[in-house]
């Protein structure tokens, strides 16, 4: 019945927007502690260096997450946060809005809504152990300052890379990467 549906937030819908009360619980479980405490003062948006030059509005992200508006996961601006944590340090409710954004990005990643630029960084780590691997010009610069061509990391000891890939596999990231790479071709 429609009236019962309105009382049950699980079925609450306005226009095309679904309201999912579990979204904010997921955000909190993934590190966005106390996100439900947000009282919309806007200190976050006012402090945001990226908000001054883009469509990212941290207060709006927090509101949408609290209302359970899952379309926040499709917003390309969700990926504009530089994670500078200025909003989090200034929040009068001590909410880690940055961590709430990171949590929303985690959920978006599971739904394969993560930008390919992120998947590429994962690919580099999976292949070399480094997000930014060495190159030939840099090897020469290393030798010039008295260092070996490669650092004593996974670059010198690639046998450690299999452990990194095992972690990517058991956390499900490897599968997401493979599927997204296949779909983008």
């Amino acid at each position, binding site marked *: 019945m429609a009236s019962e549906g309105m009382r049950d937030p699980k079925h609450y819908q306005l226009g095309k927007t679904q309201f999912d009360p579990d979204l904010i619980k997921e955000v909190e479980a993934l590190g966005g502690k106390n996100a439900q405490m947000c009282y919309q003062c806007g200190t976050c948006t006012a402090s945001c260096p990226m908000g001054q030059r883009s469509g990212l509005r941290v207060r709006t992200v927090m509101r949408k997450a609290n209302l359970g508006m899952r379309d926040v996961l499709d917003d390309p601006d969700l*990926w504009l946060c530089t*994670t500078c*944590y200025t909003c989090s340090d200034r929040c009068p409710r001590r909410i880690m809005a940055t961590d709430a954004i990171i949590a929303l990005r985690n959920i978006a*990643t599971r739904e394969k809504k993560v930008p390919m630029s992120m998947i590429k960084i994962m690919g580099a*780590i999976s292949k070399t152990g480094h997000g930014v691997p060495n190159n030939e010009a840099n090897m020469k610069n290393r030798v010039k300052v*008295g260092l070996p061509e490669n650092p004593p990391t996974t670059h010198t000891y690639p046998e450690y890379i299999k452990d990194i890939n095992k972690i990517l596999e058991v956390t499900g990231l490897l599968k997401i990467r493979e599927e997204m790479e296949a779909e983008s071709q």
Partner: protein
Amino acid sequence: MKEYNFFLGCIAPNRYPGIEASAVKTSRKFDIELRDFKGASCCPAPGAFGSMDVNAWLALGARNICLSEKEGKDIALICNGCYKSLFEANHRLKADPAMREKVNSILANIDYEFQGSVEVRHLIDILYNDVGPEKVKESVEVPLTGLNVAIHYGCHLLKPKFDRTFGSSERPRFFDELVEALGATSIDYKEKMMCCGAGGGVRSYKMDLALDIANEKLYNMTQAGADVIVDVCPFCHLQLDRGQVEIKEKFGDVYNLPVLHYNQLLGMAQGMNPEELGLDAHEISVEPLLAKIL
């Protein structure tokens, strides 16, 4: 002599080796040995990797920490991004048994277990809190008198403040004191604590917006009369150094403001030559700086 496992990360060893070399050389003056850390990987990049999966981020960070635990060595590092990944992983896994259990269940797949037996320190923290500005000052052979330094702390050294030990992230002083110990002047500039713009995966996602933030910082630094930018993060370093080339191409703004990591500035003050500090590998020429201090 205090020994640390030297966690290199990616950008320092693979783009700015002078930062790596200068850290090792300058630390020896204070009886600190930064030793090879075998098998370490990317921290992994907190903004980019944490954004995909926080548990995988913590587990990959913990893998690096576990390697050092096996050798019984504390970790020293020179990058704010690495600091966020490894300091927070170490701190959170020590403090939160449920999180530790979760991450250890991931690590069990590679036969690793996080013990919580070592410390993770940023070298700037070691220099300030263990060595101290006075001893840093005593190591100076070429005082950098008259040099106007625009300090860039970088975000993840200080923030989130509840997950750090440095106190307020609004007006910190310790880095300024370490620069002034070398005889240089730390200048004030508008929005000094603002982000460089590169983090969170934004530099690779929307470079124009990332550079727009850097451009504002560079403008503010130049307006305040900076001779050089000094940072403690190779990723901020790359954004502010190579970023100047990209900003020139994209927006037409030219600064030619040299960028040094603190360890490189310290090396210059300790009398090392620019080549051994890798300054010639920077995108923006350091010649005007050398002319001023040598």
